[in-house]
């Protein structure tokens, strides 16, 4: 550890907090309640200075988007505008209790309603729920909607089809919703294999889960055929919105005949990832699925915005309140700032940056799928592995050059995969620098593979023993 644990700063009696005086007389605990009082806790006792210095030091051991390129494929690590943070901290927008009367919340409800309308416009969906708190939460919500829809139609459908290139959350969400998962292989061009799909589809099929472009960054050119095939057996088609940054303003899931989808506000709409969350995963549906959305649903009449609680066909609630409102404020601020034309320009530049990187890297790293790709692409480190260092090693070596690594070993359909997504907020110098670093590493592997295999060398800790961590878990102090 470069910085010791906060508990190691603890000194009995040291105090970092301040509370107002009690002012009222103390009430005794009656005998029954006093049985429930605990002896003590073992929290750190530290000063405010200790807390400030410790967490400042921890922050310095981290890498964020403000530190440099973050080319994690499928994560869309774009710049998080500071002004959105300011909007989310306006007291009269943030210091709100979820059970305040709606009349006191018309400003916030207006913002949420605008966000709904804009998401619907971007996706060509008809109705939106903002309740899911993450992308996977949105997936689960969507599949529960699918489930409820068929229950309502009194059809028993048990199967959900997922391509082998899908995010792991897709099959996991389907399982949580009580479906069986059937995986289908991609074809040699990295797309859905129509024959495999046809074979998989039957009367038991509830849905196909698909992202488009897929996790290889490749647009499913037969998308209309695919959605048609699924609909033909009476099943639904669900769109995983993780890759919306590839098509905003150019194409819409609704126009591709998807029936429902989720968004990731923390990817497409620039809200910060927070070291792993919070995110926000709104779900959009076509009209016929709207009755099944989680309750309540935000509505508007002539006079006011209100939460419609009377939703007899709803799947129920998926969150204590209305979802990750603070994140929605940021996404709203982003959409208002960038505007409709700006969103399209965003897409163009995200795709341009990715294609530029691909073009500059494809000679030195294997490109398993030659197909045109959009906002991200997948390389393979197979050639380098043969020379002595794997994709994992390359990733770790990148850290020595003060750059974050791409997503590695995903999608599973590519061996030694490196999935690269630069986003539109990186400039050409940063992209060139990333390319040059990867080319340097590729050269290093030829010349001195041990150097790369033993990376990282210059980080605060060197390569950590994950096997030991799992074998003898040490999960708290």
């Amino acid at each position, binding site marked *: 550890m470069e910085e010791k644990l*906060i508990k190691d700063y603890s000194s009995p009696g*040291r105090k970092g907090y301040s*509370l107002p005086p009690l002012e*009222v*007389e103390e009430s005794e605990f009656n005998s*029954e309640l006093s049985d429930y009082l*605990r002896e003590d806790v073992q929290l750190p*006792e530290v000063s405010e200075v200790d807390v400030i210095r410790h967490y*400042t030091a*921890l*922050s310095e051991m*981290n*890498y964020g988007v*403000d530190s440099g390129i*973050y080319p994690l494929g499928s*994560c869309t690590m*774009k710049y998080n505008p500071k002004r959105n943070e300011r*909007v989310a901290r306006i007291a009269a927008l943030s*210091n*709100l*209790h979820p059970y305040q009367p709606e009349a006191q919340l018309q*400003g916030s409800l207006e913002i949420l309603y605008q966000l709904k309308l804009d998401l619907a416009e*971007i996706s060509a969906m008809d109705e939106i729920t903002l309740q899911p*708190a993450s992308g996977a939460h949105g997936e689960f919500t969507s*599949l529960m909607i699918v489930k409820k829809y068929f229950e309502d139609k009194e059809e028993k459908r048990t199967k959900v089809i997922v391509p082998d290139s899908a995010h*792991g959350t897709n099959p996991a*969400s389907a*399982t949580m919703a009580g479906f069986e*998962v059937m995986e289908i292989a991609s074809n040699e061009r990295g797309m859905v294999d129509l024959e495999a799909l046809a074979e998989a589809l039957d009367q038991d099929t509830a849905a196909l889960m698909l992202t488009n472009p897929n996790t290889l960054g490749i647009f499913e050119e037969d998308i209309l055929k695919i959605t048609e095939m699924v609909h033909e057996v009476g099943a639904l088609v669900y769109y995983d919105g993780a890759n919306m940054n590839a098509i905003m303003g*150019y194409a819409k899931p609704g126009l591709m005949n998807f029936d429902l989808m989720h968004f990731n506000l923390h990817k497409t709409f620039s809200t*910060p*990832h927070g*070291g*792993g*969350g*919070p995110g926000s*995963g709104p779900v959009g549906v076509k009209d016929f699925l709207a009755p099944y959305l989680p309750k309540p649903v935000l509505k508007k009449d002539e006079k006011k915005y209100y939460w419609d609680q009377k939703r007899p066909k709803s799947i129920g*609630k998926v*969150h*204590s309140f209305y979802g*990750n*409102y603070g994140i929605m404020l940021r996404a709203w601020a982003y959409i*208002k*700032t960038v505007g*409709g034309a700006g969103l399209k320009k965003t897409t163009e*530049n995200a795709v341009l940056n990715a*294609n530029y990187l691909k073009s500059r890297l494809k000679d030195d790293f294997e490109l398993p799928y030659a197909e045109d790709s*959009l906002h991200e692409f997948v390389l393979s480190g197979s050639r380098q592995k043969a020379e002595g260092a794997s994709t994992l090693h390359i990733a770790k070596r990148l850290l020595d050059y003060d750059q974050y*690594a791409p997503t590695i070993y995903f999608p599973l359909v590519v061996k030694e995969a490196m999935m690269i997504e630069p986003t539109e907020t990186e400039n050409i110098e940063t992209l060139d620098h990333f390319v040059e670093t990867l080319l340097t590493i590729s050269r290093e592997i030829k010349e001195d593979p041990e150097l790369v295999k*033993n990376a990282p060398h210059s*980080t605060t*800790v060197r*390569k*950590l023993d*994950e096997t030991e961590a*799992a074998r003898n*878990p040490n*999960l*708290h*102090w």
Partner: protein
Amino acid sequence: MDYISNTPAERNKMLKEIGLEVVEDLFKMIPKEVKADEQLNIESGISELELMRKAQLTAKKNKSIDQQISFLGAGAYDHYVPGIIDALISRSEFYTAYTPYQAELSQGTLEAIYEYQSMICDLTGMGITNASMLDGASAAAEAVAMGARISRRSKVLLPDTINPAYREVIKTYGAGAELEFINLNSEQEIIDPSLIEKEIDASTGVVVLQYPNFYGSIEKMEEISKIIKEDKKVVFVIIANPILLGLLKPPAEFGADIVVGEAQSLGNGLNYGGPNLGFMACKDDRKMLRQLPGRIVGKTKDVEGKEGFVLTLQTREQHIRREKATSNICTNEALNALMATIYLSTMGNTGLREVGEQCYHKSHYLAEKIDQLPGYEVANKDNFIHEFILKVKNKKSSEVLKKLIQQDILLGFDLKRIGQEGILVCVTEKRTKAELDKLIEKLEVL
């Protein structure tokens, strides 16, 4: 304004490298039929000045908690949030980072989560915690599903003293896992242990209790625990309010197998109910650990023997196990967990206890005074910690609530919303005596 870094000249240079003429060529694989041929029907982008003005004007249509006196709780709590939390989480290395997949460049996030796990274990008395859940309700729902998986039984006892929103979410998730729920009806704001004794059977996989319960009261934890523990297969899930665990015995002492809850109260603001912070802890038991959803951070060593932290036990998770994962949870509430960690570090033992005590004494002061007023009665006056049920006699609760709103007081959560009588009133350490006395006075003259 947009956030495109490259200039037109640079874009042309890049297009040239790719071998294309115009940027539209990048999208030529998209079939015409699905292409959006019109510009998005979203207004043009605005400048920062305009954005801030728009946001401020819109904010004026709200009335926030600090513009009035609030006694609202019912699952979202207005506790003191030390200012240093925002200062620290605003360090961009924290909030603009991703999930710490590359551990060596993410030791800050990882060490903080390890601290979070340690403090949650301390508060709950449990041996294992994950790195956070989406919120209290979904954590409870995942705990129930986990309990059913472990017990391999599908019947779940669900008392009505659990937060009604949580019960709804538990049922939504339960519909996925195809669980059967038995509702238990309370008397005098707590569950009669004999009811559990009556309902529990060989198909019962999970019993859930809330501590303190939705009405602020403490269930007969020991007695109920004894009943549950008679069948070793039954998984006992306790939903706890962590801010009170500086004062109250840890759920582990009542034999909890899984403890979950909402940790928004720990240094997180209200934010209209989100982002919140679900937490989830379980017994230190390999079988339970294998079933625990979500990320976990572990301490290990690097190649030179230096200690460090990594995401561990990832074979439970969806990106490896896919449809066989314990959960689909991926993005969690890491930044909120960091806020809770800083909160607990700042408050320490004495601070957290004092918060609990202040809540207790202030709410009891208020309840006693109101109970003495004609026309009002505190239903659970012998048994509550910082939230109580106020019953209004000879008047409609909704009328009382409405009149007080006009006087800048939010009296509490109207239990009408869940089909019951009364108002759930919450008092935190933030309320001053002057505010309590003002409420008492207003109620008296109403």
